[in-house]
């Protein structure tokens, strides 16, 4: 049986208009990364449901997809980000809890690495608080850029905003983060520990 090779996302989406089942290929290609993005923002449990919702929304909108964009990643991140916006409460609560608890550190591990991680917790707390206080549009841009490594153009397309707006939002968000981190004893200690590694 001959199997049609669909080389890029645009081909998959176009093919799925006639054969809807082909859309599952898009899930297989991008689901892990979209899920991680959602889990980072709203936690793993909510993320799994939003992941399914992201692809179902995408499926419903596939007829309007512009095939000039061969990679659908930005499009999917945009849909996922919109869904995160509907779960702002979970995200803020997640940030709030994260301020108090970082990854577990082995209490019997006294290595320098452990010391760095413990100190990183206090930096983490400042960072998480600063992220929570960002305006939602600024946070969307910053996290797509920093966590998902999208380019300015990809972020712009994902969020449906001009590239210039991406730049200004990113600049504003980073300035606020840096301001929050600057001069904190935790940050100073952390930098010092990092430089001593």
């Amino acid at each position: 049986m001959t199997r049609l090779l669909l080389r890029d996302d645009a081909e998959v989406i176009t093919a799925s208009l006639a054969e809807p089942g082909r859309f599952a290929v898009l899930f297989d290609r991008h689901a892990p990364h979209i899920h991680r993005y959602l889990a980072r923002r709203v936690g793993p449990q909510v993320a799994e449901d939003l992941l399914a919702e992201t692809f179902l929304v995408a499926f419903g909108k596939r007829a309007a997809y512009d095939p000039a964009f061969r990679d659908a990643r930005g499009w999917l991140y945009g849909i996922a980000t919109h869904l995160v916006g509907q779960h702002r409460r979970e995200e803020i609560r997640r940030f709030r809890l994260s301020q108090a608890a970082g990854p577990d550190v082995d209490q019997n591990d006294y290595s320098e690495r452990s010391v760095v991680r413990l100190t990183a917790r206090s930096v983490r707390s400042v960072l998480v608080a600063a992220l929570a206080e960002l305006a939602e549009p600024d946070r969307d841009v910053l996290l797509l850029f920093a966590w998902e490594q999208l380019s300015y153009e990809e972020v712009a397309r994902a969020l449906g905003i001009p590239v210039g707006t991406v730049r200004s939002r990113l600049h504003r968000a980073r300035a606020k983060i840096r301001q929050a981190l600057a001069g904190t004893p935790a940050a100073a200690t952390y930098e010092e520990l990092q430089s001593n590694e």
Partner: protein
Amino acid sequence: MNDLDLIRELGSETPLLSLPELSGARERVVKGIGRDRRGPARWLAVAAVSAGAAAAVAAGMFAGAPAPHHRAPQAVRPGTVVNAHLTAKEVLDQAAAAALRQATVVPRPDQFVFTEVNVGTGVVVRTWLSVDGERNGLETQTGSDGKTSSTVILGCVNGFHKIRTPGVDGKPINGGGKPVPMKSTTPMDGPVITEPCTPAPAYFPDMPASASAMPGYLEQTQGISPSNLNDLAKTVGSMLQSDYFLPAQRAALYEFLATTPGLAVEHNVQDITGRPGVGVGWSLQGSRAMNIFDPASYAYLGMTTWGEQDQQGGDALLQVAVVSYPGQVP
């Protein structure tokens, strides 16, 4: 290490799952594709879990995300009081009236809102949130194995909270230079530092006590569109499971929800712990959810959700109380 590096490091705590680990979501998508929807697909977020559950995962206390358990709605136990003639609006109005019969107790800023929520899969989350958000709170989780883990929820005083850093006897570990191995079992006993923050109260004195003022308040404070039934009903459930409301505030919340089109009553249901109740539910694209009330007292019991394949999730509110200190159980 710059700000972007720090943010990326924060993000690196979240693992990249493999496709087999996402098979549940894939199955839902494939099923949705099979229907070949013409319009924009909507999915009822089955994970309308309590804030406690989401926070539990955020705090890294679960080895993995709790899987929804599969269980169809069960019939109510014999002898349960059931007002089978009531509509969804009437159930909510009854809940509002019941709330108004409660004594108005205004919590003091130095007190704590205690909630106990069964989040399913045998996990019970107890949370003590500072009334004004300015004192350290606490969250504990007890699994089905009886093991309990706890997390301090930092209070925020005058825009800052205090964190004890790694160290011994109030002194930093590194002693101002290269880090040295610690010889104590109390590694977080270093200097106390202050960091900027925003208080997160568990009681809201400015919350309106009238249904007409509620949509504006919810839009502003919860970031939802009050006309979106799914968002509204989930948010109301989430608020009721984590925060404290005066009777008039709670009644206003119910009364406003009652005015929203699309709700349906479902009698003779059980919450996830098996308590009998009356459900005020809604559905989207084959999934459904409901806020559940005690059929006799109309006290709020929790939220239960069912996915397209009838997979059940949700949580049950076991207790809400105002207490004097974190860890105090009424």
